[in-house]
């Protein structure tokens, strides 16, 4: 593709911002509501410039009343508006589970198709700099468990923009989960409106030896692992899930039929989580193609500790992916890097300084 060379590079957060801007320009029904959405910090700059451009009736701040505001957004959506609600941390959406799970997810079905809820709920997952137990949870598996919700986790700037536009144009409630550590990554982002369809995973990298199915930030870690392993002649095939509900496993099955080896790397917890769902679908559908037991790389089933002396051992690292892949590929293990408790693994790159 000759266009690739000239494609702009944008940060993930700029891609989100551009998607919001474009949707607000082309559709007057789109409005943003969220605590701090129009403030100078602008949700880590994801809503930057929008209140200046569209005014305070389209970029609304709100009382700290997340549950009611979610209902308000739902009520507005019922009447044809397209609200985009924003939570600066996913945990604040926990106050709104009634409106998301009992209401938004159900209104279309339980009213026999007479009501639809075009509502996007953005949730930012925090990590590092001591985010601790209540600023770091990655609860996509919960939301993906609920019929009627769509659950999206972009991993690249390209997909952040294309998926957010699709989510805003979708006539259903969409939980749009953004990992804070992706905000600063760069990637090619085309100009103008384009869409990445909801419900379609993407083969981010082709490879013959081991399939890695990854969500959100773990996709980026998988790419890093693939780069490292390529030097050893091990090819990873990376399937970026992108949409967890509805989850189309076709590409995953095709890949496992080719490689016979499966690693699932998810940003959430292990038990009853999305990684388990992927493993279940693969074992149900192509058990005979598997040449080794599938591997889940997830968070251990404990809350997020604040001190880096513990969180350094909490998040799966690139090394965990490479080690699992070597084992599955029948290659000798390499010694695990020593991780010191005081190491600064709590930032995605040195440009991050706290608090964030």
């Amino acid at each position, binding site marked *: 593709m000759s266009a690739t060379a000239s494609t702009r590079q944008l940060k993930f957060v700029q891609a989100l911002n551009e998607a919001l801007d474009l949707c607000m320009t082309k559709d007057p029904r789109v409005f943003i509501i969220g605590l701090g959405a129009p403030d100078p910090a602008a949700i880590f700059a994801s809503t930057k410039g929008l209140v200046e451009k569209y005014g305070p*009736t389209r970029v609304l701040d709100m009382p700290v009343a997340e549950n009611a505001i979610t*209902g*308000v957004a739902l*009520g507005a959506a*019922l009447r044809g508006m397209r609200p985009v609600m924003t939570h600066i941390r996913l945990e604040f959406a926990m106050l709104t589970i009634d409106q998301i799970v009992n209401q938004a997810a159900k209104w279309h*079905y339980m009213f*026999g*198709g007479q*009501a639809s809820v*075009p509502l996007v709920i953005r949730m930012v997952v925090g990590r590092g700099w001591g985010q601790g137990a209540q600023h770091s949870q990655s609860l996509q598996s919960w939301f993906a468990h609920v019929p009627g919700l769509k659950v999206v986790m972009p991993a690249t700037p390209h997909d952040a923009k294309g998926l957010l536009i699709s989510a805003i144009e979708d006539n259903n409630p969409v939980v749009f989960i953004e990992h804070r550590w992706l905000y600063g990554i760069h990637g090619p982002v085309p100009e103008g409106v384009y869409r990445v369809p909801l419900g379609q995973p993407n083969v981010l990298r082709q490879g013959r030896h081991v399939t890695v199915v990854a969500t959100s930030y773990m996709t980026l870690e998988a790419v890093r692992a693939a780069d490292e392993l390529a030097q050893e002649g091990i090819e990873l095939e990376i399937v970026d899930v992108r949409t967890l509900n509805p989850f189309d496993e076709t590409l995953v099955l095709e890949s496992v039929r080719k490689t016979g080896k499966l690693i699932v790397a998810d940003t959430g917890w292990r038990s009853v989580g999305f990684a388990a769902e992927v493993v279940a679908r693969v074992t149900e559908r192509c058990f005979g193609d598997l040449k080794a037991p599938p591997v889940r790389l997830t968070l251990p089933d404990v809350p997020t500790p604040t001190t880096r002396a513990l969180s350094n051992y909490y998040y799966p690292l690139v090394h965990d992916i490479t080690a699992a892949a070597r084992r599955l590929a029948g290659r000798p293990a390499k010694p695990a890097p020593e991780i010191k408790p005081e190491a600064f693994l709590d930032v995605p790159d040195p440009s991050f300084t706290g608090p964030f």
Partner: protein
Amino acid sequence: MKNRQTPPDVARRMLHGIMRVRLIEERIRKLYAEQEMRCPTHFSIGQEAVAVGVCAHLKREELITSAHRSHAHYLAKGGDLKGMLAELYGKATGCAAGKGGSMHLIDRSVGFLGAVPIVGSTIPIGVGAALSSVLQGNPLLTVIFFGDAATEAGVFHESLNIAALHKLPVVMVCENNLYSVLSPLSVRKPEDREIVQLAQGHGVFNGQADGNDADAVYALAGEAIERARAGQGPAFLEFKTYRWYEHCGPLEDQHLGYRPPGELEAWKARDPLKLYAGRLRQHGIVSDADIAVMEKTIDAEIDEAVAFAKASPFPTRDQLATHLYAP
């Protein structure tokens, strides 16, 4: 409160409305025993005057939301009776295609946005409907019906604050029937604080009236609705009333012993239907013959709707997974 007389034509319409809800629900009570309406059903009998007195003001396009005890609101707003009965029977012709039942009535064609049984949940949804109308530059009144218990939920306070903040065209109507399931107000709020005082704290227009007196409901609702339509902001109204039958289901529940002795009888003596029929007769607004005609007409309407509902088909198996996502 201004002295507002109910115009005679409205009074006749309200009497018909109260009687219609009563006769429909009495019919549902009888039919429920056949065990063919297999959904939790919360009867409005005893509380009809609130729904009818408020909705008497509303234009077809104006919106309402409701909660678990929604039949009276649905009917008073003009919701389709056939669709409601078919819904209770779980039929494909039901207002929610059989997927909702009594607790999930909807009729968008008359502004009935929806009803759900999670207490308080439709309050912000109604506020959001009103907010959308303001954002669209075409303010539209939304009336939100709920019971006394909803005022104990955080979402009620959050929603009232939001409605007040944005001066939305919202009228919240609290039907205080003294009980949440079997739990009396005495275990749910301090004795010396009236529910309406909560709204005073939020600084919105508020009022309290006898929910069994259709004229009193009509008068107070009228004032609140005019203010809201005129852009003067939201209102909260508390109407004291009483549910005659069990929390959920068609039967009496005196044997449970949660109502103090004589309480039900005292409220039945102030039956909103008898009270209003008597008053209109006394003022010569209706005659006994008029009332007989009303009853006959309503009964015929119910006969037809019940026949329609019973004859309607169930949804076919292929409908299980339809309506999961909107296209």
